[in-house]
């Protein structure tokens, strides 16, 4: 008996000893101000297996910064994008945030509202200089309650990407450039088994380019009301066009949230879909997984409002938890330099510095179109309730697509709910 129990006893004792050992190991003392400051920087540069960006960051850029700032070490922690928000939220609650975060645009108002971000416009003497250098649209995503809580780090936008095979099947030599051409293409593709368009949902990121190009918007300029704006005639016409295409089977039901539909990243190269709206990161992904595919990039189809796309990207923010704000601010300045920006351009990220636009195109010619689209691109609502707005749009517009209610009614209902979100600030 004892024989058989001894292993358990040994195991448990070892466990206790190990537990005590790991728990009590002294951590490196960071409070030594004279030398060795460590800045922690959280981000999602890892991007799944597509780690080119993270490698540039950790192998080239951070060492370069550290060389110029002796005594400062930057520790980058990669976190899967889908989980970064939860981790940030929990860490905020537990007062354990890192110094710097590469934050999604929509998160800045939210965390600024929580009071965990440092208002850079008030803390940095050279803020105005840095702010002038970046795109207005990108800068605006950092604005909350009169102050700027971050600086843009990189930007991106959506453009129309087409499959050349599908263009041939529709008898077109160039991608559709206007709403009318999209509809015409759909008709030409009848019976070919190819759907003219696909998207992954009906949130702001998905539907805004259509609404804005159609001449409408989601809310008014001072963000006080959505009713009267979202349910405008222009928007009704735009959404009706999409609904008609959907009903004709020309838009995949991934747009209404069917997770089982072929994803856009796989459907376009395989010619299941003729066109999608997507960003510059797809280039790297397709080169890896569908090397024979040659996508055709063009501007968002223009409607009565022109060809207007949506601004995406990430900002860099400084948290109030940071004990080394000066060093952290230096790193932020570093991210705004041509060295930093252009190094990442080579990996498929768009720079936020206006003047670097030409160099960017010289480095990666494929980015010319994105740069151009960015000049007219607009922002989604910079409010704390951004996620709710997305859900409201998806939930209310889905029945319109399925034909159970009219487009006008769906937009009106959505607008009412968005009013409530806007009222909360």
């Amino acid at each position, binding site marked *: 008996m004892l024989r058989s129990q001894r292993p358990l006893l040994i195991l448990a004792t070892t466990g206790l000893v190990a537990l005590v050992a790991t728990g009590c190991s002294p951590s490196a003392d960071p409070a030594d101000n004279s030398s060795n400051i460590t800045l922690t920087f959280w981000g999602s540069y890892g991007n799944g297996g597509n780690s080119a960006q993270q490698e540039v960051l950790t192998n080239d850029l951070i060492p370069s910064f550290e060389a110029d700032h002796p005594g400062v070490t930057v520790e980058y922690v990669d976190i899967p994008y889908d989980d970064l928000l939860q981790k940030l939220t929990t860490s905020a609650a537990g007062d354990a945030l890192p110094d710097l975060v590469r934050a999604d645009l929509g998160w800045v108002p939210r965390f600024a509202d929580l*009071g965990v971000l440092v208002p850079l416009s008030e803390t940095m003497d050279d803020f105005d200089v840095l702010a002038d250098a970046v795109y207005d649209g990108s800068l605006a995503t950092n604005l909350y309650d009169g102050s700027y809580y971050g600086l843009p780090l990189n930007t991106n936008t959506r453009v129309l990407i087409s499959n050349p095979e599908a263009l041939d099947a529709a008898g077109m030599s160039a991608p559709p450039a206007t709403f009318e051409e999209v509809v015409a293409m759909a008709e030409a593709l009848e019976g070919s088994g190819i759907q003219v368009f696909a998207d992954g949902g009906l949130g702001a990121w998905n539907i805004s380019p259509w609404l804005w190009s159609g001449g409408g918007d989601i809310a008014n300029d001072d963000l006080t009301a959505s009713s009267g704006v979202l349910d405008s005639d222009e928007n009704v016409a735009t959404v009706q066009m999409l609904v008609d295409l959907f009903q004709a089977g020309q838009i995949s039901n991934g747009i*209404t*949230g069917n*997770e*089982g539909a*072929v994803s856009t990243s796989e459907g376009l190269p395989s010619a299941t879909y003729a066109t999608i709206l997507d960003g510059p990161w797809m280039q790297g992904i397709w080169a890896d997984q569908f090397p024979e595919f040659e996508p055709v990039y063009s501007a968002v189809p223009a409607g009565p409002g022109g060809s207007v796309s949506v601004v995406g990207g990430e900002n860099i923010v400084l948290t109030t938890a940071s004990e080394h704000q000066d060093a952290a601010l230096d790193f932020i300045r570093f991210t705004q330099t041509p060295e930093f920006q252009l190094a990442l351009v080579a990996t498929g990220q768009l720079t936020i510095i206006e003047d670097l636009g030409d160099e960017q195109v010289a480095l990666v010619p494929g980015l010319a179109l994105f740069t151009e689209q960015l000049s007219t691109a607009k922002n989604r609502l910079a409010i704390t*309730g951004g*996620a709710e707005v997305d859900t409201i749009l998806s939930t209310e517009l889905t029945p319109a697509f399925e034909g159970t209610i009219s487009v006008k009614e769906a937009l009106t209902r959505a607008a009412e709910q968005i009013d409530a979100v806007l009222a909360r600030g």
Partner: protein
Amino acid sequence: MTTLVDGSTATRRAEALASARRGRVLNPKKSRSGGLTPYLFIAPGFLIFVVTIIYPTVQAFQMSFFDWKIVGSQASEFLGLDNYVRAFEDPQFWVSSVNTLVYIVATVVPQIIIGLAVALLLHMKSPAQTLFRILYYLPVVTSWVVVSLLFRFLFADAGVINFTLGDILGVTDGDTAWLADRWTGMIAISALGIWKGIGWSMMIFLAALQGVPRGLVEAATVDGANAWQRFRVVTLPAIWAALAFVTVMLVIGGFNVFISVYLMTGGGPAGRTQVLLTYMYQQAFEYLDLGYGSAIAVLLTIVVFAFSVLQLRAFRGRYGEDSP
């Protein structure tokens, strides 16, 4: 002196019992209430439990009464029962509740029946026993994240399930949009739940079947009892505790379903396949409305607790707690 010989559990037990009966002196009163001893046995575990589970639970419970602000420096507004009232008036809450209940019924019953059936089949001597055990246990062992993504892939419009049903079996047209609709979505999610859980209940039943007195089974056979009667009279009472355990655990697990729904449908489309925990997660971590999220979690806990107590009482009543 009780001597326990190396060998199987059942043999040991039999020998120990026999030897105990030989040497027994009548003095039964002594050990039932052991003074301080039981408390000493419980102390380490219960202490850890109270500090790391109960205390946070109380805090989470507190959160539900406020419009809770994440960062401590901001004052949270006291709402009283407002979050709870809101839940009852929230149609999405009710949709989520119904979906959760549907999931429970659809997954618990098959897991128990199939798990028990497989355990019975594997309990009989079979040369490939270990191999079968591994095969049935594999789904349990694979990570939820990976199998949820895998099943989303399998149930995709162009996926294997449609291919099998349509092209191979000819049962359907092969183009069911499983994840696009509420009930087909629930079928897909439940299929994953059942597939992943059978091995788990099988394991418990296998362990419990060790305690079925073989002698009784053989005696019953000699007496002319058929398979069902043998099962009902001999086997079932012997595995009753395990059955209670499995049922309670599976129901709790059903109430707590999260990752599979989150990754397969995201609760969509338009919240139609939302279950209670995914809804709670959305409210707490995407909308940062932790007060409301906590309220939903508290309601869920209360329901689960009530269910479990009722179940335990139902099971206990039939065969009693103290062994003869």
